[in-house]
Every structure is written in structure tokens, then in C-alpha cells.
């Protein structure tokens, strides 16, 4: 049986079938749990980019979809205190050294950055991963910055004449995070009226 001509392709086909089937099953079994865990992560990071006491509403329940610069919809979560909108939290991203870096930023109604956190990246362990708050305080350096402070030409890493530190051995990663945060602030500035509009999904 094993030395028949049809055996190897048949075996390969069966293995391919069995492996893909197990992947389909595993995907079905884990999809919901992964989505739930990621939603919890998102909720945690949404909370982290707002100073304590800045919002008293359920952020995930107060979202608006706004078309971003590249045509893709950006989900903006609104922070409220009582009836007033006190800020907006949304995801922005830029291409890093190894794939997209996703950053969640919180912006106050005055356009100042309340906080930024990297929620997903594939940068080099030990070099580029200093953008995580658990590994370095670097990301906290963005707090309080806005589009005019520092001025537009200073929105970059020090190597490019900007005000933000780069890391030893990794410039592309922090450069991408700076760009992501800056683009996020520009997005907020361009859509400020829509984001802060009263009513909506409150």
C-alpha cells in the first residue's frame, strides 16, 4: 500500500485536510474567548489613557464611527462626566519596524493629549518593545502634548530634530509611534465638531 504511486499524494491530501479541519475547529472554539479577551484589553487600555476621574460613563457603550483620512472608519469612544463630553479615546496606528503599531490615545476637548498606550505591536523584543508602558516610561512622555506644543516641526524623535527620545538600537519604532500619535491628534482636530457633538449614542 505504502509503495503505491497514489499513496504519497493521498497522504498529503489527508494531512492537509486534517490540519485545516483542526484549525477551523480551533478557530471556532477560541474565537469568542479571544474577542472577549481583546475587548477587555481594549477597555483596560481605554481607561488607562484617561486620568483617574476624567470619565464616569461606560466608554465602550458610547462610540461613534467617523471616516478617517484613509477612508477607513475610526471608532471614537467618548468620555463623559455627567452630560458633558470631556474627551475622546480612539485607536491610531502607523507602520513600525515589523508591521503595524496600534496606539490608543485619549484627547481632551482642548486638543491636548491625555495619554497614549501601545496596545499591539510586533517590534523586536528587547529593542523596540520599550514602547510598552510595562517596560519603559517612554510613552508617558506624550502626556499633555498637543499639535501646537511642541510645534509641528518638532513632532519627531530627537534624531530627526524633534523632542521625543529614540531608543538605543531602535529609531524606526519610536518614530512610528510619534507619527501615530501626531496623526491621531490631527484626526481629532479635523473632526472635533463631529466627535464632541452632543447626543449621539449617549
Amino acid at each position, binding site marked *: 500500500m505504502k509503495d503505491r504511486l497514489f499513496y504519497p499524494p493521498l*497522504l498529503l491530501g489527508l*494531512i492537509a485536510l486534517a490540519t485545516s479541519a483542526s*484549525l477551523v475547529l480551533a478557530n471556532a472554539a*477560541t474565537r469568542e*474567548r*479571544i474577542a472577549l*479577551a481583546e475587548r477587555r484589553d481594549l477597555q483596560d487600555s481605554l481607561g488607562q489613557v484617561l486620568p483617574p476621574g476624567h470619565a464616569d460613563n461606560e466608554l465602550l457603550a458610547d462610540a461613534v464611527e467617523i471616516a478617517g483620512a484613509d477612508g477607513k472608519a475610526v471608532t471614537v469612544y467618548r468620555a463623559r462626566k455627567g452630560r458633558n463630553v470631556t474627551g475622546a479615546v480612539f485607536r491610531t496606528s502607523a507602520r513600525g519596524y515589523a508591521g503595524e503599531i496600534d496606539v490608543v490615545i485619549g484627547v481632551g476637548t482642548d486638543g491636548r493629549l491625555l495619554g497614549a498606550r501601545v496596545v499591539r505591536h510586533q517590534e*523586536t*523584543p*528587547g529593542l523596540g518593545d520599550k514602547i510598552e508602558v510595562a517596560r519603559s516610561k517612554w510613552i508617558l512622555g506624550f502626556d499633555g502634548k498637543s499639535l501646537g506644543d511642541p510645534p509641528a516641526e518638532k513632532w519627531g524623535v530627537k534624531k530627526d530634530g524633534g523632542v521625543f527620545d529614540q531608543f538605543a538600537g531602535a529609531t524606526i519604532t519610536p518614530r512610528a509611534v510619534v507619527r501615530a500619535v501626531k496623526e491621531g491628534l490631527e484626526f481629532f482636530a479635523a473632526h472635533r465638531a463631529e466627535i464632541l457633538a452632543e447626543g449621539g449614542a449617549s
Partner: protein
Amino acid sequence: MKPDAIVRNGLWDQNVVFAQMLALCPAMAVTTSGVNGLGMGLATTAVLVASNVLIAAIRRLVSPEVRIPVFIALIATLVTLVDMAMNAWLHELHKVLGLFIALIVVNCAILGRAESFASKSPVGESALDGLAMGLGFTLAVTAIGLVRELFGSGTLFAQASLLLGPGFAFLEMTVAPGTSGMLLMVLPPGGFLVLGLLLAGKRLIDRRGSGA
């Protein structure tokens, strides 16, 4: 093969990195610190044991012409399953180790053990071989990581608590506080330098052992 020979081969005589010179890509890429090396090593060990068991179990069914694609399909599936399962049930650990898991697919040591051991041996021995080879790999990448970390950033086991839990915070040591370290050691050339030096060290020990 006798169990003690399998263990000895895996940990020292046929060490994946220091004797077989396999898996150098992950051994260089993630060993910028001891904890990164340890994380990669443990994740690899888990996959290696599972893939050895699976391949030993079906070894009589696989015809030699297509064994390599069959092994690769099984290993890639296994890694993806581990990745999904960890993401779903051990989400906190996945956040730390997730980075390394995708890299395991390209670890030629796994295919190497499938081809040279598991495809010719019973399930039990293959499991032991996977465990020993995996721990040998863990030892090697942790050692490379620790040396690079010591000279590159002046710390040992920094951020161990992120990987192993807060109980292991006592492992974290700052050997040279306030120094920024030698950047070279963290960059890829440092990996080659440290690997070469450790390799020479192992040869020296082996020679002394046999020559005396």
C-alpha cells in the same frame, strides 16, 4: 536509546544550538535579554514535545517521499493551535509570549528532531527527546540572553516578573546601575559574538573532559 543517553544528548552532547548549530535564527533574534531567551525556550519546548509525540505516533503511515511537507504541515498547525489556545485561555501569558510563538514555526530544530529522531522512534522516547532537546535549547538561549543582557544593559533577568509572575521578581538584578551598557551586545553582532564565545567555551570543557 536509553533514557539517560537521550537526556544527555539533548542537554549537552547534541545541544540544539551549541552542538547541532540549529535554530540559530531564533537564538540570535530574541536573546537580547535572559527573560526573552527563557520565554522563547519554554514555548519552543512545549511545541517540540507535542510535535515529536505526534510525528512518532504517525511515523509508520508516512511515506518517505512526502515526509517533509507532512512534518511541516503538522508543525505549523501545532504552533497555530498553541497560539490560539494560549490567546483564548492564557491571555495574560500570551501577551508576553505571543511575540515568540509565531517564530517557532521557522525553528528548524523542530523539523530537525522530527526528521532525525521522532520519525524513527517510539512515542515515549520521542517525547523525552523533545523535552531534553527543548530544555537544552532553553539553556542555550537563556545563557546567550543573560550574557548579552549583562554587557548590553547591565542587568540580569530584568522583567522576569512579566514572564513568570510577581513571585519571581527576586531574580531581577541590576548589576551595573546607571550604565547604558554596550549597545553592540544588544544588536545582532553581539549575538554572534556571544554565541561564538560560548561555543568555544563548550568545546574547551568537552576537550578537557575527554583528554584528561
